[in-house]
């Protein structure tokens, strides 16, 4: 008897490895469809403690925000989110006293719908956890140690000593994804020699919901509006310069920030100590394996130049959830080759295109060569004068283009 030797593992339909924003949203999206028929389990050792309140804030584009609204998680996040009502882009030397505005994106995606919101990481995770629990997602504070794949199912070994069989494993386990490594899926990557310094700044005057991106020679410097008179800065700097900058005493550091931040917002104070993240570009050679889907950072890491990291991950979630639910709605295997093919087809182009655009933008702007400045400024100026093209950029940035997955358009599955 071939069955007798194998102790049957407990079974779930979809096992989500990693309880970050992407993993939790995926679990919630799957559980919210088909009247909760799919069994969904999230495994992450971090689930044993309350969500870490870190200082990162994300720009959540309109499409992914609609998805969170459809899934019932937005209301709780909205209380702490700040709409981005307009966005300006400048291209200047750091020392220029006045930075002419080359591109001014203002306007909403739809009536009363800003094209993005700034959301703080802790609030996002807390809201998603609450909704996932409410919807009936099984949350286990365990690590997925490895996955053995058989034709009919994947069997995960968990850090608690048990096993769990699943039709599909979604690896939402971050840029260094152990499950991706184990599946033998390689990556293409290169470091940028740039780091992102992130901090929360309080300022005297109101930001009026305006996001600013200043293309300075060392890299883009972004100011993103938070609740109250606060902003999150994402300061891209050559990695060589970072230790010296972070080693400055508070006054000098603040002066450096002020040089880049500008004076429009009045006096600045540091709310949190700045933290540096090394930037890289990484894309997995494949987004799927046998009964395995790589999601969000496990599949790709892009330059944060346009704040697209979280949004790209949530676009993955929307596409994967749609493929899985479409299949399950027909009683078909949610981890089948067909589902995975559909997911990869839906995401691969978008991701690589976005990655290369970010890469190109960064290379184009992170320098101070006069002819290059001229070309890019003429380019940005042209975009600013062509309403159709600008709307295209806004809609792309908001991820609500017509071909987007249903969840991003605010429809349920």
């Amino acid at each position, binding site marked *: 008897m071939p069955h007798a030797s194998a102790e049957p593992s407990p079974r779930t339909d979809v096992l989500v490895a990693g309880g970050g924003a992407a993993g939790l949203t995926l679990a919630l999206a799957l559980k919210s469809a088909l009247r909760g*028929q799919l069994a969904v389990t999230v495994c992450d050792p971090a689930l044993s403690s309350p969500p870490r309140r870190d200082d990162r804030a994300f720009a959540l584009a309109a499409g992914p925000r609609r998805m969170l609204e459809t899934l019932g998680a937005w209301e709780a996040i909205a209380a702490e989110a700040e709409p981005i009502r307009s966005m300006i882009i400048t291209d200047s030397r750091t020392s220029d006293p006045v930075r002419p505005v080359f591109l001014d994106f203002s306007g909403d995606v739809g009536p009363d719908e800003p094209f993005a919101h700034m959301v703080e990481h802790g609030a996002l995770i807390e809201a998603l956890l609450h909704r996932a629990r409410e919807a009936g997602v099984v949350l286990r504070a365990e690590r997925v140690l490895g996955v053995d794949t058989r034709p009919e199912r994947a069997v995960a070994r968990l850090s608690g000593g048990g096993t769990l069989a699943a039709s599909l494993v979604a690896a939402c386990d971050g840029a260094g994804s152990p499950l991706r490594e184990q599946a033998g899926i390689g990556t293409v990557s290169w470091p940028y020699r740039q780091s992102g310094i992130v901090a929360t700044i309080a300022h005297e005057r109101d930001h009026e919901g305006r996001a600013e991106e200043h293309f300075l020679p060392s890299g883009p410097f972004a100011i993103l509006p938070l609740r109250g008179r606060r902003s999150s800065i994402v300061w891209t700097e050559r990695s060589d310069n970072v230790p010296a900058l972070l080693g400055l005493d508070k006054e000098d550091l603040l002066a450096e920030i002020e040089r880049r931040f500008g004076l429009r917002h009045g006096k600045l104070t540091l709310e949190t100590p700045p933290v540096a993240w090394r930037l890289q570009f990484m894309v997995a050679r494949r987004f799927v394996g046998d009964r395995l889907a790589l999601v969000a950072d496990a599949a790709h890491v892009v330059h944060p130049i346009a704040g697209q990291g979280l949004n790209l991950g949530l676009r993955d979630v929307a596409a994967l959830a749609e493929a899985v639910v479409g299949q399950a709605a027909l009683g078909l295997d949610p981890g089948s*080759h067909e589902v995975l093919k559909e997911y990869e087809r839906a995401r691969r182009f978008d991701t690589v295109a976005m990655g290369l655009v970010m890469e190109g933008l960064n290379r184009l702007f992170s320098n101070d060569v006069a002819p290059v400045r001229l070309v890019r400024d003429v380019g940005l100026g042209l975009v600013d004068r062509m309403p159709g093209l600008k709307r295209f950029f806004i809609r792309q940035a908001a991820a609500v283009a017509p071909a987007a997955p249903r969840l991003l358009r605010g429809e349920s599955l």
Partner: protein
Amino acid sequence: MKSMAAATPGGTIDEAEVARFERIARTWWDPNGAMKTLHRFNPVRIQYIRDHVAEHFGRDARDGRPLEGLSVLDVGCGGGLLCEPLARLGATVTGIDPAPTNVEVARLHADASGAPVTYRRATVEALVAEGARFDVVLAMEVVEHVADVRMFAEACCAAVKPEGMLFMATLNRTLRAFALAIVGAEYVLGWLPKGTHQWEKFVTPDELADALAGGGFRISDETGVVYNPLTGSWRAASDMSVNYMVAATRAQRPSARA
């Protein structure tokens, strides 16, 4: 081996066809194997069945288990490609096939996947004789393999409960079907084993309607299924010149009643 009690020779079964299917039965569940085309085709026919059954019985097609509580008979179930999904949608499914290997493959797979399906090596005529009746009877991609379409259709009709539904899918006997389903799919593209289909056994929609009328049924919906070579997928469409599916219900008043 199995006891011969379950065997029901004769009737509308073509013995040569049964033997041929046994040879390929082992590969039923390999999505890239001999049945690749059927795997690709499967979502279209499941959706067609699910949506029409949901409508007929007043269910919500997307509620996860729209077929809850309905009995379904899949005639010519093969390896169970249709039975398992329908069972997951809530139906109580019985799959029958005259080929013992098919039934064995289907049983093994259902055990491994946990889908509750009852499989039997039997013919629809035998089930009708036992008095078994079902809410939904399916004969998908079967008509073109049977020896006598009229007798087979009548037996399928007889297995349906008074308010139930019957679904059939088959290949139209057109030149296009010959070119695509036999020359194209079997010889040029190698999607199907050579000899899977014989064009003379293909059935036109009119002939199928006649055969169903003989069983007291009327076609309530019909659709073509066409292949999109760019996406490699199948979809329902109005073109019925090659593959097509029909849904049928009992005609209001049985014809030819004295």
